[in-house]
């Protein structure tokens, strides 16, 4: 059980990276982005493209760091992929959502458009990479370390948690201490007043997509390192992402962090009683329970 909780924390961190971005987009731009899971997939595959394609072509050595399953190639691919998905998210905003904003479309039209975006990204990934399970380093043995309480944990998973907290910490500093971060919070709080204060809300929207896309990409890559890559991985993350976002109150990034861990742990612990394929249903049931008991989430105003 202790082991499942530890795995749940790792999965939860990955969910949290997606949920934080989803929550930011939901809070600032005001709609449910059904393509957010696909941003995770896109990040994972973009890193795959760099690791197995570009970097092998330009001759970056294919070593791994000691007991970890990745090496320099992944170190370079990681930020590149985050930036790539940030641009992808901004691109979709420029060609689709901005046009809908200009027409004063209702939030459901945006959500529907993002559903279309999710299918478009997923189809492109399947067309290019197919729908098989893939690995960054196929055939690599991944031994686990034994730590107290009889918990087996892979060194990769410790690094994954470290990266999750590093990224959340950076985001925290950005939102609390930089002018752009504060302006993002202001826009999430009161879009009209932000505009009145001279904040160019279109620019805030671009930043929001960029940060949301980059964090989702990070989550996708980390999942790829921890488990595997699959074209539908992001789609299967969508319900856990929404569950974490709603649990932590929409628009609240710290809530999304807590929600992510809660959902991740619940999903992993459930495998002690249920088939692992039911993880998604577990997230769904938790979400329905939150909607029934406390739809504003744990950090929302009553």
């Amino acid at each position, binding site marked *: 059980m202790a082991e499942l909780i530890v795995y749940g924390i790792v999965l939860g961190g990955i969910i949290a990276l997606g949920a934080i971005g989803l929550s930011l987009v939901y809070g600032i731009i005001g709609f449910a982005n059904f393509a957010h899971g696909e941003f995770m997939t896109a990040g994972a595959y973009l890193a795959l493209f760099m690791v197995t394609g570009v970097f092998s072509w330009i001759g970056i050595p294919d070593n791994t760091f000691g007991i970890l399953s990745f090496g320099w190639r992944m170190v370079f691919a990681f930020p590149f992929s985050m930036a790539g998905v940030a641009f992808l998210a901004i691109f979709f905003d420029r060609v689709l959502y901005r046009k809908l904003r200009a027409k004063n479309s209702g939030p459901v039209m945006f959500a529907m458009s993002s559903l279309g975006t999710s299918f478009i990204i997923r189809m*492109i990934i399947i067309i290019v990479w197919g729908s098989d399970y893939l690995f960054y380093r196929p055939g690599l043995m991944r031994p686990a370390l034994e730590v107290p309480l009889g918990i087996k944990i892979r060194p990769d998973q410790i690094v994954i948690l470290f990266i999750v907290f590093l990224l959340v910490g950076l985001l925290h500093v950005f939102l609390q201490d930089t002018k752009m971060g504060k302006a993002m919070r202001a826009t999430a709080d009161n879009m009209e007043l932000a505009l009145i204060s001279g904040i160019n809300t279109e620019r805030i929207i671009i930043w929001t997509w960029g940060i949301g896309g980059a964090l989702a990409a990070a989550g996708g890559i980390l999942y790829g390192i921890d488990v595997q890559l699959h074209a539908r991985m992001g789609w299967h993350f969508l319900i856990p992402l929404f569950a974490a976002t709603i649990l932590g109150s929409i628009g609240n990034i710290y809530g999304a962090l807590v929600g992510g861990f809660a959902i991740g742990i619940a999903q992993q612990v459930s495998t002690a009683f249920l088939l692992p394929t039911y993880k998604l*249903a577990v997230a769904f049931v938790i979400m329905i329970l939150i909607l*029934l008991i406390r739809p504003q989430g744990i950090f929302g105003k009553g």
Partner: protein
Amino acid sequence: MEIGGIIAYLVSFAIMAGIYAVFCLGLNIQWGYTGLFNIGIAGFFCVGAYTSAMITTPKPTGIYAHYVHQILGLNLPFVFGLVGAAIVCGIIAFLIGIPTLRLGEDYLAIATLGIAETFRLIFNNEYWLANGPRGLIGLPQPLQGLVDPKSYNYVYLIIVVIVMVVVYLLIERAIRSPWGRVLRAVREDEISASMSGKDIFNFKMQALVFGSMVMGVGGALYAHYTIAISPEAFTPLYGTFIIWVMLMAGGSGNNKGAILGAYAIWAVWIGTKFMTDFLPYTLKARAPFIRFLLIGILLELILIYRPQGLLGEEKKVSKLIE
């Protein structure tokens, strides 16, 4: 292809498009008239199909019982399958509506999406329920003995068209009634002072249940057309996404548009199949995904350039309002 082949092809085209038209009509009640954002149509599709299958087939006996598990097998006529599918889908819609319809419109979307994925998981993993991923086969077809099996599709086309027309007339009647006018008021947030939050909830619930029942009927029609069903048939792509594109293309809030959209998009879908036949061999295996990519792009274009669809919304709801 000889003439007979072409006609047979057109008949099977008309049947599938007709089944999709039923789904579009169901979705139109929810989205077009009431503004409910259901993106879990595949869930109702799946449950409708399985319900009807279990109502109309006998429970396997003898040696088959070792290979085919199903919790229920009533061996009743087709009509019971349709009605049963509608009832079960209605109940599920009611249960989803309880936690979500009081909240913002996105919540229903997220919940329906979740329920669709959950149903697919359950049907895939629970062998005792409906034979797991192998699914159910040998579903009976209504009026089977009436004609030569080779021409049976003509009979089924007539059945599909009858169901479609009945559903169409039913919805037209309903939305032209005072009930239908209230639905639109709910959608447009033009709620009169006399309406309480509870009233609004009730109207949304009625529309959600009604639309989902129609989707259940659609699922049943599909099941008895293909004779064999398995969970993988009810993916978000075939079960939800394409139906949304159909309704948006035809014109939400317009029942004629819903039917037109189903036929138009199904024609586009089939048409892209001919297109992808020209693809180089290496890409052929991925052709369906290329076609779905095109459908996805089509949806985005509709949302931006023609959100009202081909026909647009029918303005005249009641003879009283001119």
